[in-house]
């Protein structure tokens, strides 16, 4: 190959490599950017007076005087709406049955949209669920509710060949000729007076417990549960994994048993995580009875079994990568084998061992399936450190799944879900980052 071709190939390969890194970076950005922007929306948003009211009465936070003033002014603005409703109620009474039934359905929708905005309307019985006791706490959601109020969504079935399409019908047109027609333009024009939006930074999203199944409050129990489970898993898996790796690399003789153990370890690394979850339930809870039912302990043990192969393999590789000459030097100075392992081999292998450990920690924090049957509950309060042996805990991974699929009002609290995803991603990224920094530091110390 001549020099020209070689240089050309060199250059095109460089371009290829650079290009693929750029593509990977972009892909990461495409995934992370929406998570970040929407997740931050759970903390930084325009909160309404309802949000401040809720914080004051449920968490005792906020300036009570200012809030009661705001409440009064919002109430004043809302009062006109309530008056219009009362007027229309009377008007409805006097209509004949046909006209009544024409409006009744849509009128109920109007009221329900207004409840979404303001909370219970005058004359309503006090709702049992807390989510119905307050109006809309977020301005962006309030604007959605306004749209619901202003337009009725109908479906276009006219063309049987295509899937029906929704279209909006103005309620103002629907209620043309009644007293209610003024309500729509009034609410539209005065929404901010009635809701009083204000830019809010709600750190409580990270530090508060949730109220009424994540409708209000924060995700601290989930964050704490995730941390407990991940650290608990590492407490079991890390020492065990490192000891196993030491055994494999320094003590095991090549034989049938060793190769069996090795292949068992490799196989374990490929087992789907749901299998570990079922195993955890069957073994730790039903057979070993480590706890009465789901608990942080059982979940940690299950996660530990899951990450063990990764830790063993990373530690094994790190130990094998330690130059043999270190070991020779130590032994030739009259060191015992164990002493050599502890004072020379492990310190030199530490960066690799730690990397494996932190990657496993991240994995333990993120896995859902192993904890479904062994540790996780959907809604719960933060448990104390003393309860880890017997209490289950909410955890980010499981609650993200739960909010996305099983929660009865998933669409109402998307921001909580994004906030959880962002928290989980942040935790895992921070862990990996700390692994990289730790590794770089130790390597630098070793290299001098």
């Amino acid at each position: 190959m001549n020099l020209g071709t070689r240089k050309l190939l060199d250059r095109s390969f460089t371009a290829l490599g650079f290009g693929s890194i750029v593509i990977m970076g972009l892909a990461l950005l495409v995934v992370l950017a929406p998570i970040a922007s929407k997740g931050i929306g759970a903390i930084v948003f325009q909160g309404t007076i309802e949000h401040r009211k809720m914080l004051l009465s449920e968490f005792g936070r906020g300036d009570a005087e200012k809030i009661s003033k705001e409440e009064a002014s919002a109430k004043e603005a809302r009062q006109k709406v309530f008056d219009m409703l009362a007027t229309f109620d009377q008007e409805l009474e006097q209509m004949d049955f046909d006209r009544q039934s024409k409006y009744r359905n849509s009128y109920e929708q109007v009221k329900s949209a207004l409840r979404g905005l303001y909370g219970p309307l005058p004359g309503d019985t006090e709702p049992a669920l807390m989510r119905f006791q307050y109006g809309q706490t977020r301005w962006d959601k309030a604007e959605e509710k306004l749209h619901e109020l202003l337009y009725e969504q109908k479906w276009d079935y006219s063309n049987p060949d295509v899937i029906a399409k929704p279209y909006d019908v103005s309620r103002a047109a629907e209620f043309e000729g009644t007293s209610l027609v003024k309500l729509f333009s009034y609410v539209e024009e005065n929404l901010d007076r009635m809701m009083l939006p204000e830019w809010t930074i709600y750190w409580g999203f990270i530090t508060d417990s949730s109220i009424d199944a994540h409708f209000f409050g924060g995700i601290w129990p989930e964050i704490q549960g995730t941390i407990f489970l991940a650290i608990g898993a590492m407490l079991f898996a890390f020492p065990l994994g490192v000891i196993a790796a030491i055994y494999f690399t320094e003590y095991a003789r090549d034989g049938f048993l060793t190769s069996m153990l090795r292949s068992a370890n490799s196989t374990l690394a490929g087992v789907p995580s749901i299998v570990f979850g079922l195993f955890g339930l069957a073994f730790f809870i039903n057979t070993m009875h480590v706890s009465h039912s789901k608990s942080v302990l059982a979940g940690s043990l299950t996660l530990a079994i899951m990450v063990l192969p990764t830790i063993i393999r990373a530690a094994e590789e790190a130990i094998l990568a330690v130059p043999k000459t270190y070991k020779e030097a130590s032994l030739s100075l009259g060191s015992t084998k164990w002493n050599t392992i502890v004072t020379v081999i492990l310190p030199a292998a530490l960066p690799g061992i730690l990397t494996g450990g932190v990657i496993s920690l991240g994995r333990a924090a993120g896995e859902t399936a192993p904890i479904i049957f062994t540790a996780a509950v959907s809604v719960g309060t933060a448990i104390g450190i003393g309860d880890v042996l017997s209490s289950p805990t909410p955890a980010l991974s499981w609650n993200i799944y739960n909010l996305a699929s099983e929660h009865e009002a998933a669409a109402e609290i998307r921001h909580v879900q994004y906030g959880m995803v962002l928290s989980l991603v942040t935790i895992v990224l921070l862990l990996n980052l700390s692994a990289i920094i730790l590794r770089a530091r130790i390597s630098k110390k070793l290299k001098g």
Partner: protein
Amino acid sequence: MPMALEATGMKKKSNDSAVLDIYLPPERKKIEGGGKPHVVAKNFSIYYGEFEAVKKVNADILSKYVTAIIGPSGCGKSTFLRAINRMNDLIPNCHTTGALMFDGEDVYGKFTDEVLLRKKIGMVFQKPNPFPKSIFDNIAYGPRLHGVKDRKTLEGIVEQSLRKAALWDEVSDRLDKNALGLSGGQQQRLCVARTLAVEPEILLLDEPTSALDPKATAKIEDLIQELRGSYTIMIVTHNMQQASRVSDYTMFFYEGVLVEHAPTAELFTRPKDKMTEDYITGRFS
């Protein structure tokens, strides 16, 4: 009676070539209290599995003197040297027959503590292998291992060892720096100092200068001269000038067989064996 002493009674060879004269060693002083058999091999063989790498060696290594081991590549020099402090234990299928005695004790005896043995028989390897720790911690590694905890005592040992290894002046102001930052020659002297810090009786050197430049090599050779008389030293080398410069006795191995073992001056000027002569005159290597 050591083989080396027999060799002195040999007849002078008639065809002494001029080439051999350059290998004449400098006058060496007799060492008081030295010359006792320190390591004794009796029909000592070393196997890697079935392969007999060192074959039925009989030799006395004399205390306090420097013994060089020479021979072509693969003849078993390292294998023999590493057998003396049982570094070959690290190789799974390596075993020995015959006897190897150190101070009258069987090195491969059932009740021999190889850890204690290695404390008394230190080794410096071909490639400098300091630990990725500070210079101080490198030297203090052995003493700490054997129970020295007091900082002052450790400092004393570190300084002494570095002085013995002629490295003190170069590193005294950066003992806390990582040893991997030293030059190759300094690293090798550090390894010598590290070995000396455990106060061994025997110093085994396996081609200690093959990875070093001539200047660093000269320093190590000077160092060996310094240490001669305080320790029993065995040095494997490919460099025959080096063997003649630093050693009192020389062992020549060929394909696992100890062909000749004689005072260095004898072996290089009046080799008893044709094979030895061919080797030292460079007819093969």
